[in-house]
């Protein structure tokens, strides 16, 4: 299947705007679950306002949150897709720039030292574009994630050692949640990377934080750890917005990678309650939009 890069550009523009306006159904269900079990009056009231905001955004065709984030595009290329990778990258960048100028959106992206904002949501190595491949032949999938800074500013890496074992991982996750408090805009999805190199570990924590609620780590060890952590973290009482209650997190997600015999790295990245993402899937039948 040959991919029309003009269509990719258009889709990448559309995806940024869709992601900012429509919260995925799994996150809405996550809100409903937390709202049902919340026992704290302040927590209940805060969740009610957040749920109302989702409806207002839909009714007024507005952005859920003013933070347009750092744009991330996750591209998965099927084995039967014919595409010039370099031009594909350019199409994604152009789509991202056009969304920012044409909607318009607040460009939240600046040069890290001059702090100059080009008002395109783009800059050196931004948008972040990740490529992966699948043996499904005729599918090109592009997932867009606007990653807000409130949650991203609270990211951690610890190069623990093998002698510290899994206890080090569990303790670190709990301490990160306590340190984050209300700064990450809870309820959050707590993403945990376990293993790999330092950079891979941090990347995995981001993959974990941005996965759909209800999805599971495909490593059984990781799946068991995320279930265990998910069952405990809401007992800490940090609560929605860090103002107390039972709704600290929707879930803890874990992603794992093999690591070195001398290493035991753990990273934590969080996704705020505006856990936004959108997906476009290109097949021979055309483009479909979803989450």
């Amino acid at each position, binding site marked *: 299947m040959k991919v029309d890069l003009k269509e990719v550009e258009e889709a990448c523009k559309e995806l940024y705007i869709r992601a900012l306006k429509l919260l995925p159904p799994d996150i809405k269900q996550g809100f409903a679950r937390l709202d049902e079990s919340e026992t704290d009056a302040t927590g209940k009231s805060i969740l009610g306002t957040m749920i109302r905001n989702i409806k207002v955004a839909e009714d007024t065709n507005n952005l859920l949150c*003013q933070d347009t984030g750092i744009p991330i595009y996750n591209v998965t290329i099927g084995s039967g897709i014919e595409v010039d990778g370099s031009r594909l990258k350019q199409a994604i960048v152009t789509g991202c720039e056009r969304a920012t100028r044409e909607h318009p959106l607040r460009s939240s992206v600046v040069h890290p030292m001059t702090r100059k904002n080009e008002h395109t949501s783009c800059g050196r190595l931004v948008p972040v574009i990740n490529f992966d491949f699948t043996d499904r032949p005729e599918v090109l999938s592009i997932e867009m994630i606007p990653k807000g*800074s409130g949650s991203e500013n609270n990211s951690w890496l610890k190069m623990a050692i093998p002698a510290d074992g899994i206890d080090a991982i569990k303790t670190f996750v709990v301490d990160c949640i306590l340190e984050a408090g209300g700064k990450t805009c809870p309820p959050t999805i707590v993403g945990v990377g376990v293993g790999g190199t330092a950079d891979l570990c941090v990347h995995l924590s981001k993959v974990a934080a941005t996965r759909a609620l209800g999805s599971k780590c495909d490593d059984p060890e990781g799946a068991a750890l995320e279930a265990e952590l998910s*069952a405990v*973290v809401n007992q800490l009482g940090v609560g929605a*917005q860090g*103002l107390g209650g039972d709704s600290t997190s929707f879930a803890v997600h874990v992603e794992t990678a093999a690591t070195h015999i001398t290493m035991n790295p753990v990273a934590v990245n969080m996704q705020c309650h505006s856990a936004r993402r959108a997906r476009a899937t290109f097949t021979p039948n055309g483009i479909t939009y979803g989450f």
Partner: protein
Amino acid sequence: MAHYELNTPVTEEQVRKLRIDDTVTLNQTLYGIRDATLIHMFDRGRTTRFDLNGHAVIHTAPNVRIVDKSAAFPTGYAPLCVGTTTSARMERFTQPLMKQYGVRIVIGKGGLFAASQAAFKDLGGVYLAIIGGAAALETTWIEQIEDVDFDDLNPESLWKFRVRDFGPLLVAMDSHGGNLYTQVNDAALDKRAAALAALGVKREA
């Protein structure tokens, strides 16, 4: 727990009445500030032509659309989506905002720390928590962008909004040392050991 409807600017007496867990709804003027605004004001010596005395500031940077200037859009900016950013990064600017400019109310999310708490106590100020991430709703409380200073810093300009029924906002830090965040954080730290035990942690690294 009382509810207050306040028109800005406010007096020290009005602010000192507020206690944590009270709620406040604001009307009239609200100023938008954040990282670059404050860095330019306090580290680079820029001064604003706005009179912030007795006023409320919110940690924000809005999404705006450039439009023709008119009575409805005096700045040539229409508000598209106005929300709130994490306050923690603005901690060191609370005291100078209050001392040099007379600001009385800081609105944000996630809370501020000890230096701000001391400024609220010494100078008469308060921190009002808004629900972060609920920007579509917050935008419906903004009537107009009345004016803008430091326009070159867009979107981190100093914005002057006219607001109506802005809230309810929760008094999370007051001028008497009350602080909902430290209450919650202290209680959460007390639950840390139980959480680690529930996770079967035997030896902390």
